[in-house]
């Protein structure tokens, strides 16, 4: 359906832009089209809300609150991920 209206963002593009949107970094036109997409896309609305909740929750967890063992596990996951890139 989006091929009929090529300037309307696709769900994939919305996912790519969501961080910039939440940080208020999208240029006005992109921001407007982003929000218009949300009007008719339940899936992207849910995704945006999940991202918001994740950011809120992550912001409430101070580094020192992490169990040292869990912290090390997480770091190892990141190191492995980085080594693969």
């Amino acid at each position, binding site marked *: *359906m989006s091929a*009929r*209206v090529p300037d309307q963002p696709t769900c994939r593009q919305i996912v790519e832009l969501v961080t910039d949107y939440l940080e208020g970094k999208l240029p006005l036109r992109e921001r*407007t089209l982003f929000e218009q997409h*949300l*009007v008719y896309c339940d899936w992207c609305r849910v995704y*945006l809300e999940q991202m918001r909740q994740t950011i809120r929750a992550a912001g409430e967890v101070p580094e020192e609150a992490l169990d040292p063992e869990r912290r090390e596990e997480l770091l190892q996951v990141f190191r492995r991920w980085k080594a693969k890139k």
Partner: protein
Amino acid sequence: MEGEEVIAFKWLAKGAVAPFTGFRWPVNGSWVSAPPGATDGLGVHACRIAHLAFWVGEELWRVELQGPIVERETQLEGSSGRLLDRIAAWDPEAFRQACVERIAGFHAETPSAELSDYLALAKTVDAPIASFVAAVAAVAARGARSAFEEERARQSGWLARALQLREE
């Protein structure tokens, strides 16, 4: 356009909640201001009648915007605003049905599998989605990208007539 004060319209989610930010608007007429230094696009938004179809939501309110007010392609933006009253006549089902009938009309004029799919889809979704599908169906039926905006304008006109909206 730059002005100091405009009466316009605002779509909100149920309970006078802003659909994108989750902000709950006061319904007692209190003013709400954009954050100081808010950049373009982050002010208080509202619609002229011509903008209505792009932003369909669960509740429609009449709002007062204060300036400076900037008119953009599909919305107005001011530095502060307040809800005046809710448009009680807003009937999403009637609007959805009008969109379905519109797509049925396109399909009757120029039958195609694509329009048949749009018609089937519009019958199963809510009003905001059905109106988007109808605008896309207009492009498919007319074969011109401009039909999208034309259909949105037509939908906004339908809303204004059905809800007896006037710009002040």
